[in-house]
């Protein structure tokens, strides 16, 4: 070959090389890519062990709780006792008596007591034991390593698996899978990154979240005229609407902008979605408020409380002042009345006044851990677990399908999303200390659809860092500390039985109940 002697190819050799390249890419390319794709087919993945549900056409539900600020798994279900760690005094380990075990369960429960929460003079007395005992068979904890310690970015990544499936969020994926017949498939009451849209622009617009900020008063906006003093009859409203639509259609404005995407969407919302929402009488069904004049004069305005109002107010007595309680109550109603298949809620970083001791939500939610790690984590975990417990109770008591005997809970997944964990070091043996953001953590999933009473991954007591697992087999992998955001994302959807064909998501069968 000329190349060996001159460092150049002759014209003939060059043509031969080019033709070989072309022939090679034409013949081998499809074979090689076909080989690669054949490993990704649903059939091939099922041969490898992926479990899938038959799609029965009935909805499943997702409740995402955005535990804002960094809910630390080592301050709850994977807490470490001092006696277990050689670095106990320097790391976030608890006195042995504060970390309780439950027979037959891998979960732990922290008991905490202090007379103050950081610089806030309110007592914190919490115990996670009752929750674990009650719900352990529907609990799964999956250890995690994230990719951001920025709140907003990490919040969003906890919902997209760091863009694991074209950037869509879990809520959008669930809305696409099960929400086609729902008027508002995806309602989002979360904040920051938990309320952001995903980046998969190919999804139908209905899959993106409808933002709700005031769960108690928002249902008043689900009918165009009811509850408005001296409003004309529905017949007259219907005439007004048809006249308006006719005027819009003929006006110079309407004709000039008839191709506008905003106007097309508006007409769709006015003509299709609005009658659907009004037809379901949601201004009543979703209305948690009682008739309590003069503050809440429902009857004076021709309105009624939801038929479920009394029991929801009993389950969430602070619904009007504590945002999380109000959100949880509305979440239940949105699912019960088949308005939505995905609901997102959670505390935000603002102080909420209320509760037993005057503070329902401390500043920065879980992120108050910067000031008082243990107290902040204990207070906020109690807050989250309290809302989850009430929600599960309501969902269990709500029939879904009389024929199959399923309750709403049987078809619901609660995913406690959070940004990240917290740093582990502490001043020697300190019980009050602050913590920073740490990529190492774990996520809590609750559902009859998850493999219950299970920890995927594990905890290394000497570092108090979690280690990873094989998302397909569930086998723990001590020492594995690599990011697994797509595994968590896939695990939620896999456990729910979503159709993941073509998603490219990793097989996360380990999350699914057999």
């Amino acid at each position: 070959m000329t190349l060996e002697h001159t460092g150049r190819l002759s014209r003939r050799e060059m043509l031969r090389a080019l033709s070989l390249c072309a022939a090679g890419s034409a013949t081998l390319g499809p074979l090689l890519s076909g080989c690669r794709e054949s490993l990704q087919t649903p059939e091939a993945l099922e041969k490898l062990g992926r479990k899938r549900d038959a799609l029965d056409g009935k909805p499943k539900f997702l409740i995402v709780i955005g535990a804002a600020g960094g809910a630390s798994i080592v301050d709850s279900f994977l807490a470490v006792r001092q006696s277990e760690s050689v670095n106990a005094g320097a790391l976030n380990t608890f006195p042995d008596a504060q970390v309780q075990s439950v027979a037959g369960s891998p979960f732990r429960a922290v008991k905490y007591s202090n007379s103050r929460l950081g610089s806030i003079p309110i007592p914190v007395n919490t115990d996670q034991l009752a929750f674990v005992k009650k719900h352990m068979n529907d609990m799964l904890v999956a250890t995690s390593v994230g990719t951001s310690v920025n709140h907003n970015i990490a919040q969003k990544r906890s919902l997209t698996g760091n863009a694991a499936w074209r950037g869509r969020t879990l809520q959008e994926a669930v809305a696409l899978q099960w929400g086609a017949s729902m008027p508002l498939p995806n309602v989002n009451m979360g904040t920051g990154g938990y309320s952001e849209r995903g980046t998969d622009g190919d999804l139908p617009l209905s899959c993106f979240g409808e933002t709700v900020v005031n769960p108690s008063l928002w249902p008043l906006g689900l009918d165009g005229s009811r509850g408005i003093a001296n409003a004309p009859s529905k017949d007259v409203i219907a005439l007004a609407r048809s006249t308006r639509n006719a005027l819009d259609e003929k006006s110079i404005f309407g004709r000039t902008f008839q191709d506008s995407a905003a106007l097309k969407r508006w007409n769709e919302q006015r003509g299709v979605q609005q009658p659907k929402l009004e037809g379901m009488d949601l201004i009543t069904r979703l209305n948690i408020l009682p008739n309590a004049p003069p503050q809440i004069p429902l009857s004076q305005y021709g309105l009624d409380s939801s038929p479920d109002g009394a029991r929801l107010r009993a389950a969430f007595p602070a619904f009007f002042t504590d945002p999380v309680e109000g959100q949880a109550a509305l979440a239940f109603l949105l699912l019960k009345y088949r308005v939505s298949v995905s609901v997102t809620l959670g505390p935000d970083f603002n102080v909420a006044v209320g509760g037993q001791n005057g503070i329902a939500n401390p500043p920065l939610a879980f992120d108050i851990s910067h000031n008082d790690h243990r107290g902040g984590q204990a207070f906020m975990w109690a807050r989250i677990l309290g809302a989850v417990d009430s929600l599960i109770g309501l969902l269990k008591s709500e029939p879904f399908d009389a024929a199959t005997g399923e309750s709403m809970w049987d078809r619901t997944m609660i995913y406690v999303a959070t940004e990240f964990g917290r740093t582990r070091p502490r001043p020697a043996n300190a019980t009050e200390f602050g913590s920073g953001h740490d990529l190492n953590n774990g996520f809590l999933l609750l559902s009859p659809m998850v493999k219950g009473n299970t920890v995927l991954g594990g905890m290394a007591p000497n570092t108090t860092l979690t280690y990873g697992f094989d998302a397909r087999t569930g086998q723990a992998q001590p020492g594995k500390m690599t990011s697994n955001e797509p595994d968590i994302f896939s695990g939620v959807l896999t456990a729910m039985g979503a159709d993941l064909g073509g998603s490219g998501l990793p097989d996360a069968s380990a999350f699914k109940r057999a």
Partner: protein
Amino acid sequence: MRPERLLLTCLLLTGCSDKLPIAVDLGPSDAGGGVAPSYDGGVARSQKGNLRFKGPERLTLDLASALELPVASVCNELGQYPCLNVHGVSLGGVDPYAHSVYETAPVTGAAAPIAVERTVLSACNARIAQDLNAPATAVVFKDVALTNGKLNDPTSPAVATALSSLVRRAWLRDPTQEERDTLVQLARDVEATGTPNPGVAWMQAACLAVFSSAEAVFY
């Protein structure tokens, strides 16, 4: 040829395309695909269609200004919770301090059209009540005669003036004759429903129709 040059040549060749760049489609060049110029002289469809939804503040302030109402009395849920707060985010607004909503929605939400109607209807009711209770200082429905709650004459000059006033306040232009006729026909249709006080109901319906129209809520 040196191997690196061969490689470079290959890359350049594969980067080239035999297709000419596609021109941006600016739409039909004649009226055939557009709007027939038989109505009001015809209009050309906007190619950009870059409409903006008014949002909660602009909607409320425009209603207050157009109907000569104090901002605080435009709309209050249950008579005491300002719609601007209750429906602000549904209407695409922000709520940074109370609920950490820092950015406006990129598109209108599903509840937005309903929130618009509630806000508009409340404002219309407030205006109509004032016009009826104090005819001497009526703003929109001035001199519109009612007998037993019915319009005396939907074709009267007073009704035509009221409709012009309504449309000018909402759309900043005069109504076309067809638009005026449509709103007069609305009076007859409302009366045919048998609703009590059909004259007042027509005022409400006409006000709602005009102020919740796309022309009134987009810009």
